[in-house]
C-alpha cells in the first residue's frame, strides 16, 4: 500500500471533507485509478465536479496535479503514483 495526500480547494474541499487528507491506495496505482477510487468513494458530487464540457473550449476545467505538476506534463492519467505523493485537484479560480 502507498499513502497519497489528496489536496483540494473550494467546492472540491467541501465534497472531499477537507483541504488535505492522507489516503491509502494499492502500490503501483496510476493517477487515473486513484481518481476512479475517489469517484466511487465520494459519489456523484465529485463526478459532477470533474465533468468536462467538451463542446466549449473557451473555458478551463479542473486540472489534476501530481506533486505540483500538471499531469499533462507527465504521463497523464497513466502516471504512476508513489508513496508520499501529493495529488491536487486544481480548481478553476481567478483573482489576485
Amino acid at each position, binding site marked *: 500500500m502507498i499513502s497519497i495526500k489528496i489536496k483540494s480547494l473550494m467546492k472540491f474541499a467541501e465534497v472531499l471533507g477537507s483541504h488535505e487528507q492522507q489516503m491509502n491506495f494499492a502500490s503501483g496505482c496510476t493517477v487515473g485509478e486513484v481518481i476512479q477510487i475517489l469517484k466511487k468513494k465520494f459519489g456523484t458530487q465529485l463526478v459532477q465536479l470533474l465533468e468536462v464540457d467538451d463542446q466549449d473550449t473557451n473555458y478551463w476545467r479542473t486540472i489534476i496535479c501530481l506533486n*505540483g505538476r500538471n499531469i499533462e506534463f507527465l504521463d497523464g492519467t497513466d502516471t504512476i503514483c508513489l508513496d508520499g505523493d501529493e495529488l491536487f485537484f486544481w480548481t478553476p*479560480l481567478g483573482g*489576485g
Partner: protein
Amino acid sequence: MSSSYMGNILRINLTNKEYNITPLSEELAKNFIGGTGFAVKILLDEVNPVIDPLSAENKLIFSSGPLSGTAAPCASRMSIAAKSPLTGAVGMCMTGGYFPVELKFAGYDVLIIEGHSEEPVYLWIKDDKVSFRKANKLMGTNTLDCQQLIKDDLGDQNIRIACIGPAGENLSKMACIINERRAAGRKGLGAVMGAKNLKAIAIRGSKKVGIANPEEFSLARKRMLKAMKDSPVLYPEMSQHGTPMTVDAAWGIGIFPAKNFSATGEWGPIEKLGAQASKKYKIGSSYCYNCPVGCSQLKLVRQGKYGGVLGEPEYETYYSFGGITGVDSQEAIIVADRLCDEMGLDTMSTGATIAFAMELFEKGIINKDLTEGIELKFGNAQAMIDLIPKIACREGFGDILADGVRVASQKIGKSSEKYALHIKGLEMPGYDPRGVKGHGLGFMTAYTGADHNRSYAFQEVFGIPVPYTVDRFAIEGKGALVKWNQDVRSVTCDCAPMCAFLMDMAVPSIAVENTRDLVNSSTGLNFTSQEIKLVGERLNNVAKVFNILSGLRKEDDYLPRRFIDEKIKVGTSKGQSIPEEDMLTMLHDYYQEREWDENGIPKRSKLEELGLIREIGLLKEAGFLQ
C-alpha cells in the same frame, strides 16, 4: 460621428494656477487607444526621465479610456502615471471605482497636473470650470474623511474625489492615491501628489459619452456579457469570495509567500485565511461603476479592540499583512487594510516592508533599540498594526520604513539588503516566483518593477490554458508567454480599459477580439486584431525607452538573490528555485521575443515597425542606438 472619446485633454498648472483644454489628437488615439497608452506616451513626451520625481517637473497624468462611461461592463478604469519616486522608472497604477467615468462625464479623456502649489490646494473640476481651493484645513485628514469633508464643503454628495492621506503629505514613497475606497496603490504616486501640495482632486460632470456605432456596440457588449455569464469562475466564485480566494489558489500550488518569502510552503494558514474562513467576516460587496460582479468584499471586525472596523482586504493584502508577516488573524488583516486606506499607504509595499523588518529582528540584525521597544517578530499582529500610522507620519522607526525596503535597508546597513526583496525598488507581489517561473519573469521585466498586474501569468497561477497550457516549473518558452501576457493585458485592460479580472476569468481566449469590437464600435476607429495587439507592444516599448533613459539597466531586471540561491523547502513547490543561469536564460529569451538586444535595448527595427520614430531619436541621442 459620435465617439466615446470626449476629445479633450485638461491641463492644470499648480504653479501659476492656470488651466487649458486642448484637443485629443487622432494620432494618439490610433496608436495608443487610451488609458495607460495615453499616460505613458505623454509621460515620455513631456517629462524628462532623469528629473527628481518629487520635483515640480514631474507630472501626474490621469487617463481614462474610450470604454469608460459607456455601457461596456467593468470599464470604469483609469491609469495614473508619473515618474515613480519609489523606483525611478515609469510609475503607473490602474484604479477603478467611479472617478474614471466622472472624468469622462466632465468632458475629458486625460487630465495632466503640472507644477507645484506654494500652499496646500485641492482642485474642483466641474465640467469646463476648474477652481483652485485652499486645502489647509484638510491637511492631516485621512482619505475617507477628506473625501467627505470636500463633499460637504462643495454641497454635493455625488462628487468623485481622488486624494492623498498623511502618507502622501509626508512624501512616503509607499503613498498611494485613493478614490472612493479604491487605490492607485503602488509606486509612490501619492508622494508625487503630496510633493505638489495637492491634497485632492474633486470632479463632477454632466456630459454624455457617445457611441459611434450603437448597433455594433450592442452586439459586442452582448458577446462580452455572455462570456462573463459562461465563466465558471466570475459569478460563481469571484462575486462570492473576491480576490481573497487566491489565498486558496496560491496555497494549493505551494506558492503562498510566508515570513518574507523565507518559509513558503512551510506556513500557510488556509484554515484561518482561506475563502471558507473569510465568509464569516463578510457583510456585503462593493461595486465599481457599471460592474455586475461586485468583487470587493466588505469585511467587518465584530468584536474586541477593533470591533466595528470595516475593511475590504484584497488578496495582495492577505499576502502582505498575512503571509509574509506571519500573521494569521483575519481581524488584524482587516484593520491593517483599513488603516492603510485611511493613511493612503500601499498595502503591498507597507506589509512587505514590515515583513522585511520582522526578519531583520528575528535574525538579530535590528533590535528593540531601533524598533522603540517593539518586539517585531513574525506573527506579532499588534506590532504590525501599530507601525502603519508611524510609517505614514514618519514617526520614529516608522520613518526608517516609510520609503520601502530598498531605502530602509540602505538606512539600516549591516548587509540587510539581502532581505530587502524588490525589483527596481518595488516590493514583491504575493506569489513566490520560484513556483511560478513565468510569473516571476513578468515581475522581472514589468516596466514598473515587481508588478503582478502588468503581465499576470494566470496560466501558471490558475492553470488557465490560454493561449496554451503552461508548465509552471519549466524555464523554456517563458519569454514568449510573458510577452503575450504583457502585450494583451496592456491593451485590453490598461488601454481600452477593462477590469483585469475579466481578462483572467471570462474573456482570456477572446480578449483581443472583444477589445477590437468594443473599441471600434464605440470610437469609430477601425483596428484589426493584429493592430490591437501592436498597441500593447507599442506601449511596453515606450515604457522601456523611458526606463532606459531614466538610468535603468539590464541588472534592474534581475530577481532578488533569495529566489536564486534558496529553494522552497517543503510543500507542493518543494525544491524549486530559479538559479542564476535559469534566470538569465528566461530573461534573454524574453529580450529575443521582444526584439531587444542582449542588454534589453529595443532594436531600431522593432521601434520602426511600431512607428516609434521619436523614441529612436531619443535612444540615439543618449548613445544606445546608432
